[in-house]
């Protein structure tokens, strides 16, 4: 059965969700990336959207303007989450956001935030931006348009938004970190093997 989270998300909604699980989202997800994180954490500017219990999407979409305050989501895939690692722990603490969606892994600060404040980091398959756009029912509003199309805060109402692959769960387990240990073990052996065959300077 499909596991679906609905906003507002409570701490107990995250019970029993583990890394590697695939989940979906119904409700509100707000795009929030580099500059929005910087404005809140470094410059102390209040976010124009209350994210308590909601989801954020590390994403910068292509949006078509249909008329005054009316927009269509054309293409919206995830961006590299690791760029927000510097800010994410404090961001989760200050906003009460429950679900962070992006691509690639995040590191120890975000793990700690997910464990302490109960939240998840999930991967939406990167590059699958039209798939994601078709799961956006409506753009409810947009804030901080001065940041330009990719960096603005787009407030999306979504249905069956996913697949979302859980990369950090609310216990702080980290799928990418686990995978990376394995990748690094394999790497060292392979580098040694290949190095023997490329001694062209001799």
């Amino acid at each position: 059965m499909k596991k679906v989270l609905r906003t507002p998300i409570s701490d107990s909604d995250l019970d029993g969700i583990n890394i590697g699980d695939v989940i979906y989202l119904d409700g509100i997800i707000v795009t929030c990336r580099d500059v929005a994180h910087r404005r809140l954490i470094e410059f102390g500017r209040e976010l124009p959207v209350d994210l308590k219990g909601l989801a954020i999407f590390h994403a910068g979409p292509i949006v078509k303007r249909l008329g005054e305050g009316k927009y269509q989501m054309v293409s919206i895939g995830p961006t590299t989450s690791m760029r927000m690692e510097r800010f994410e722990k404090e961001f989760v603490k200050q906003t009460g956001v429950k679900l962070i969606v992006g691509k690639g892994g995040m590191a120890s600060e975000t793990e700690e935030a997910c464990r302490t404040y109960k939240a998840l980091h999930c991967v939406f398959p990167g590059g699958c931006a039209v798939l994601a756009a078709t799961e956006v029912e409506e753009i409810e509003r947009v804030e901080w348009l001065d940041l330009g199309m990719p960096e603005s805060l787009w407030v999306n109402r979504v249905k069956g938004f996913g697949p979302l692959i859980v990369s950090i769960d609310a216990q702080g387990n980290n799928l990418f970190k686990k995978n990376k240990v394995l990748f690094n073990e394999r790497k060292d052996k392979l580098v040694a093997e290949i190095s023997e065959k490329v001694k062209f300077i001799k």
Partner: protein
Amino acid sequence: MIDVDKFTDIVARFLAVSGKILPDDVTEKLAELKAAETGPLAKSVYESMFENQQLAAELNRPSCQDTGVINFFVGAGDGFPDLGKVAEALKQAVIKATIDSPLRHNTVAIFDEKNDGTNVGERAPFIHWDIIPGSDKLQIETYMAGGGCSLPGRAVTFMPSAGYEGIVKYVFDTMVEWGINACPPLLVGIGIAGSVENASLLSKKAILRPLGTRNPNPRGAEMEILLEEGLNKVGLGPQGLSGNSSVMGVHIESAARHPSTISVGINVGCWAHRRGTIVFDKDLNYQILSHKGVKL
């Protein structure tokens, strides 16, 4: 005299198409890698990727939201007329495609830190020129350099004592640390030369080579295969979630080095490798080499 408006219009339409449909060689390679996956998570990620490409074609939308900073690598025949007008026409084509396709607004001005929404600006689009003696054609490689796959890009200069062994380690370290987040399976471009900017430029040229082509030097070709097989054994899988492969390919381009230095540049292309090749003759008849059967 070429009809500059016509040229601009064709390039703009080609750019738009190249953001919606992947080149034939990439689609073919992805199908091959998809078929070789065995784990349920890797398989389902590939399913999403193929579903996405189908939706992008059906709905006529950019398949990835990050349509990049546009790069043109131009092979200019010395007999092609009006070469002096090409750069401005390419810039106008980007402005037009940004509206018509649409493309995401991606050019941020350095220092001023403003994005004016045009996708052009200081040295944007980025244009690189090669002159082709004895040709009256104009070959344009278009590339959408997205942020995700530009992020792992790096270059370093080693001392010769590090050898090609140093390059191998550098490539593997970069792939595990950074490639994992750059939407694998990746196309890995490596430039080897005597200074970082030479190596970097060559690493970008390397990812514009069609998949399946090999470095002309037998040792170069061997090193490509060794790295390709080795990186696949690391098993990054689609999106770095682990699987039976990591890369679509490894391409190496090289230039003679200085005796004291060995520089290496790395650039990767994500699975949504939006490269396009179009060739114009002097009457602006064109042939699309990367996307067979595509109508503009």
